[in-house]
């Protein structure tokens, strides 16, 4: 009797949605979300609005080239420590763009990171590389 009850409980638990039960519709929707954020990142990357002097990220980094997201975290000798890519983006915002830093989780930072990674898709991870 007891045994049967245990089985019944586990069946009930398995019935509703479980984390790894997602459909093609879900993955398409999630990718769409990513693409929207990456597109906003591209807009910011090519826009003078992200700094104060009219300079845009894309002026030096067309298609986000020479940003090498696959090599982070890595040692930046000028900062004297291992850093993340967003810290380097902030360095560029402060210096060539003469602007303000963004928090790591600022939606604008997330959008730019999404764009940079999208342009580098397919390249193998190689953390630390110079």
């Amino acid at each position, binding site marked *: 009797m007891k045994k049967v009850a245990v089985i019944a409980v586990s069946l009930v638990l398995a019935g509703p949605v479980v984390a790894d039960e997602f459909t093609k519709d879900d993955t398409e929707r999630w990718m769409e979300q990513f693409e929207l954020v990456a597109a906003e990142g591209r807009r910011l990357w*090519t826009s003078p609005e992200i700094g104060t002097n009219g300079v845009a990220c*894309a*002026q*030096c980094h*067309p298609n986000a080239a020479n940003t090498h997201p696959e090599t982070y975290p890595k040692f930046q000798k000028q900062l004297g420590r291992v850093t993340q890519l967003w810290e380097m983006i902030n360095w560029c915002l402060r210096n060539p763009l003469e602007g303000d830093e963004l928090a790591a989780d600022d939606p604008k930072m997330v959008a730019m990171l999404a764009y940079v990674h999208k342009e*580098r898709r397919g390249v193998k991870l190689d953390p630390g590389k110079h």
Partner: protein
Amino acid sequence: MSNETLNGRRDFLKATTSGVIAGMLPVSLVRLAGAAESDPDFTFAYISDSHIQHIKGNEFVRNWDRGLIRAVAEANLLEPKPDFVVFGGDLAQLGTKAELDHGAEILAGLNYKTRVVMGEHDYYLDLGEYWSDLYGDHYYSWDHKGVHFITLNSILTYDDWTFDRWESPERRMNEMAGLDNPNGSPFMVGDKQLKWLKKDLSKVSRDTPVVVFSHSPLQKIYKGWNFWTEEADDVQAMLKPFKKVNVIYGHVHQIQYNQIDKIAFTSVMSTAWPWPYPESYAQAESHLPILTVPMNRADPFNERDATGWQFMNMHTGRVDLEFNLYNNSNRTIAFNRDKGHPEDVTFSDAKTRTPAQSHF
């Protein structure tokens, strides 16, 4: 600005930079051994892609200003003096009168006759009208010490893009200013100028050395960033009968050199900022000439890194080129007569190359 103030600024630059520069400038304006041919050697300097950028009022982006100011100051210190200076285009960032005036004022500090090439950033706001007030014809030729020089305006494009697509000149300029902008359009010389070039070349002996200045490469390297000219093949065909042809181009903000038939191609650096090699854009295929030993990957922490200017030794009809790189070892790309193409005098052997010259 009055002449008095201009001169004052120039003197200031000389005074503040000469102490540093004197020990640093590679003034190797010597003739190479074995100069047997009769063409006289001479030198000229080449400054390009300063991208002077207006912020507001009398504020301009300091970083880009500094690159051009330094090039002018250093070129003035060359000894022996160059015969002339060429500015290779993209004096301005968005083609405004404020930018062109500010850039022209800095360039006017040069103590030499200056020839100017049209860049797309100078052109697409008013189609070169104000630039013409400053510098005259968009394309022209002249002879100097037995060499025929030609300056082309290679940054034109299809008429429908230029005249029919955009609601304002400002929009048109902004669309062309984005290097990787898919709304841009390929660079062209155009039929009118090709006819002019054909006629101009018909008067030149095939033994006369020819030097062509263009903003965009007259060879096809990567269309996505307009490292490209649509009629490159047509121009090359027109130049093919000449025994010694040298094409010097800006736009790419990086070291490139190549040889196609008898035509030696060499790019020049920007005074403002470097661009990645197209091969470092993972989603595209490019055709960087295999002869090219790349410049160093830029260190973004140094704002003058991978920027600079050039001087050129015109030696028996071929251009030997010295890159004066503000924060990197200088590079010399000389024409190797035995091999029949330009080559880096230090790094041609793969074993001599440095990790910073590998791009990915």
